[in-house]
């Protein structure tokens, strides 16, 4: 009954070909087939954003994105963000600003901020724009206050 299909995508810059269950979400394939457990499931229906990844540089909830849709696409997950033992600018900002508590929403938030900062580095960004661009990611620990600071720092890394 189950239908399997072969897909090829790039995951954090490396090509992979997989034979996947077509019913699986991208989140399930990342976590179960590739062992990339950084993206989390908080609701399974696209409400919380804990599973956020980038597909061709677009932020998506991977729990409601079918894995077969990722065929021939470039996927970026939290696991690919730190390189050569060094955190990305966004990751470092989250650490420095105390934006991490339980950490369950953190990988999704960092991908959301990464997507946002790529679009607007160096631009003048208002607090409202930051809030709106991250409204698809829920956090129950921080009141978003230090996340706000981390995003600001990601956009303007030199500003202290």
């Amino acid at each position: 009954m189950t239908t399997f299909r072969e897909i090829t995508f790039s995951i954090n810059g490396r090509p992979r070909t997989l034979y996947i269950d077509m019913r699986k979400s991208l989140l399930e394939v990342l976590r179960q087939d590739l062992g990339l457990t950084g993206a989390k499931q908080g609701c399974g229906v696209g409400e919380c954003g804990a599973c956020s990844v980038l597909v061709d540089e677009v932020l998506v909830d991977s729990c409601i994105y079918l894995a077969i849709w990722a065929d021939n696409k470039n996927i970026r997950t939290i696991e690919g963000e730190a390189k050569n033992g060094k955190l990305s600018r966004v990751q470092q900002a989250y650490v420095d600003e105390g934006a991490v508590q339980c950490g369950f929403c953190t990988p999704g938030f960092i991908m959301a901020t990464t997507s946002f900062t790529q679009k607007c580095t160096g631009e003048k960004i208002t607090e409202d724009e930051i809030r709106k661009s991250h409204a698809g990611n829920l956090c129950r620990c921080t009141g978003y206050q230090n996340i706000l600071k981390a995003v600001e720092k990601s956009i303007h890394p030199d500003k202290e």
Partner: protein
Amino acid sequence: MAIGKSVNRIDAIAKVTGRAEYTEDLYKPGMLVARYFRSSIAHGRVKNIDVEKAKVLEGVEAVFTFKDVPENKFATAGHPFSIDPDHQDVADRLLLTRDIRFMGDEIAIVVAQDEIIASKALQLIEISYDEYTPLILPEDILKKDARQIHKGSSNIVGEHQYSTRDLQVISGDVDDALEKADYVVEGNFETVMVQHCHLENHIAYAYMDDLDRIVIVSSTQIPHIVRRIVSEALNMPLSRVRVIKPFIGGGFGNKQDVVLEPMVAFLTLKLDGRAVQINLSREECMTGTRNRHPFHINVKTGVMKDGTMVARKMDAISITGGYASHGHAIAAAGGSKQSSLYPRMATKFHARTLYANIPVAGAMRAYGSPQVIYALECATEDAARKINMDSVEFRLKNIARQDDINLLSGKKILSCGLADCLLKGKAFMDWDKKKKEYEKCKSGPIRKGLGVACLSYTSGTYPVCVEIAGARISLNQDGTVHVMVGATEIGQGSDTIVAQMAAETLGLAYEHVRVVQTQDTDVSPFDTGAYASRQAYVVSNAVFRAAADLKKKILDHAGLMTGKKARDLNIINGKIVDTHTNAFLMDMKTLAIDSFYHKERGCQLTADVSHKTTTNAPVFGCTFVDITVDIPLCKIKINKIINVHDSGIILNPVQAGGQVHGGVFMGIGAALSEELMINPATGYIYNNNLLDYKFPTFMDLPQIHHDFVETFEPTSGYGNKSLGEPPVISPPPAIRNALLDATGVSINSLPISPHKLFTAFKKNGLMVSKGDADV
């Protein structure tokens, strides 16, 4: 020196790289999954259940119903065991039930090869019920002939009262004091059921690593308590159970309860030790775990014309839902933790906790205080307004001061910075100027107001429960140390401050202290876990002693190596120094290598302390808020909000700030939008998902400000007191008081939603509609 520095979290790198492993990340190949078959009614009894079709579905390994589980009732509350039988928790739960007590009650469970098969099997179970009328409102629950939700309970889980006269702390009866007061102000206040909504749902799995022992991996705040309760539920020796707690994605009290662990242990026992996981969906997690108790509270306040409050009488009803869980402990704790706030008046507190056919209520951040102090601080505001006194002045006149006597414990309050908290908050808000400015904003469609509310809380559960903490510190061969504690990191930053404490006392760099970040009941020191904001306070006493002990052993060994007296040596910045000559003697690595490998002297230098704390420091704080009320839109906008806390010495300012932000955010949610909506006739839950349950998103919040008044608390290792829960307590009454200030309308129930504002504004003539047809 590490205390008081905003060092980065010890687990920050693991978390920002996605490498921190939570329970779901520790997947075992071949692991089976289990899913509950839940009741579709709120009150009744299963007439018949047929699981045969589900059992034969391909990929289903087993189906169990209430007929298959032990007839062994157990209590689920994550409290330490009480030697006093009168203080033990209510054992009212079976693994699966025939008697339905809330919508979503657990009747059967399917074990299958994967989630899809398990979900299909659930649809093949046939069931019929005898349905009873759900008991949801207190007046129905307490009716004389009401059906008993648990046989023999009279639907009352617990009842207690205390009064200052009985305690002989303050002379005079509360009723006499009310009689003699210039004014008596009375109010009825209500809070609703709200949910923790930790981002990681409840999840646990279990397997057997031989023929005897069960290993449980669970997202829990209380691994050592889980171990005891599983052994009780399954009637087996405690040592046969091992509980492992990996990283956890938030708990807020909901994981201070034993929810899935007895079932996964039961299933692995039944299935020859195979690994079985239960991973609740968000919808199940919001109704099938725990919530916050709704309260109904009547408050009478006696006040004199000069602004002195002389009497307070509170009568509370708390609703615990279908099972006791933490039960009456919530109302009792809420009642007792307010006792430090206004300790100089005659006080009486009475509370009852009732069963009801709604989801089970348990521990949630601040454990009864968000309900009790909400009522208390609304009532305090009403008393201030009765005599036309400024809200801040009125509180300054009545609040606790250092050296006051707590009216319940009879103990002296050794540190109290509440007055300074109020003054700091007042200055931040520019209170007097704004008050004047806003006098012009009390009419028309857009109005403005200021609100304030205070809080008191405690730093643990003593003397109601034992407060025991363990710490073990070992010197590594490279001169760093490893620390093991039984206290659990749940996101609040506990492991980080444990490292700071150890570094401070040992004289090491923070980076040279590693904290083992998994609790495993086979190896971790005993500690009852993360709740009651106890850890930084109670653990400080264990870590301080262990670190001091290890330091002594290190210096003794340095003495052996150098021939100097240990008392003339010290550890400064990770180096052994002669304090007489300030001479550098050796680094820690040299000492460590000698202690491990010298053939005649030394050993692995280790300190292991288990310590009971027999004090409990009160903490204080307040919220100030500035709001704009849009009357036609029925909307409250927060212009500015600040929480100021006295939590003793602040161990890590940035992380402490994070605790305050998160608490204020939860408080704002409870004040304005959060409610688990329950049909009062059927017990149906309307909004058990993150779309319809409105906890604030990034866009719904203002900037959250915070400040501290640092006092030194002499009963803790580093002068610190509790901070994790308190910030959630005072925002709701402050917002209610600001609404009253802006509009003159008292809304005495939470949340203050647009729906409620509409009704209240219409009733009070603030909104005029063209006719009810428009409504």
